[in-house]
């Protein structure tokens, strides 16, 4: 089984400041990792994913994340946030193999960008 822990439930940050949203996971098997964003009253949108290769992954809207296997972390970063980045962010993992593979989500981090 897999579990995902998002260490901060809420992160307030001023516009144009950098931000890091933290994600740690636990799994007995190798996993793929994802970050999704959810704007109010909308479904989830994929920000970025780590499948293999370089541990630094770039996504949409200027976000990036770094996979750290030894620390089982996949933290999301953006060097300069905008008001429009205000949303809920979810970290998720899925096993790399198996018959019934399901996404396991963290509980989410609400990012609020302040003017």
């Amino acid at each position: 089984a897999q579990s995902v822990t998002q260490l901060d439930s809420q992160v307030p940050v001023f516009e144009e400041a950098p931000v890091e949203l933290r994600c740690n996971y636990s799994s007995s098997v190798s996993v793929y990792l994802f970050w999704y964003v959810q704007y109010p009253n909308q479904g989830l949108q994929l920000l970025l994913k780590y499948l293999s290769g370089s541990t630094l992954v770039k996504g949409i809207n200027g976000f990036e994340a770094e996979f750290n296997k030894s620390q089982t972390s996949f933290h999301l970063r953006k060097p300069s946030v905008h008001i429009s980045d205000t949303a809920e962010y979810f970290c998720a993992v899925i096993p790399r193999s198996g018959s019934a593979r399901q996404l396991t989500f963290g509980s989410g981090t609400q990012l609020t960008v302040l003017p």
Partner: protein
Amino acid sequence: EAGVAQSPRYKIIEKRQSVAFWCNPISGHATLYWYQQILGQGPKLLIQFQNNGVVDDSQLPKDRFSAERLKGVDSTLKIQPAKLEDSAVYLCASSVGQTNNEQFFGPGTRLTVL
């Protein structure tokens, strides 16, 4: 390309009533998922279909929840009878196949059970 469609967007019912949600996945996507997202939590998978067959329904409360995808395209999720704790957003997602790692999500149906 049209996204995943869901209806209704909002539903308010009283406990012990029945409710149904509808989902139309992206054209050509063989795999369809229903998730339950309770306020303050991440989505939790309820059921996964591959075409019209069930791949995983281990977390579906089968005494009250049912889902079908008869023609391998659109799907319905039903709750009968509803309980207060069923209040949540129900998200539908689809992907090209089981091994494809990107799931595309619909806007969800927000259910309030009074």
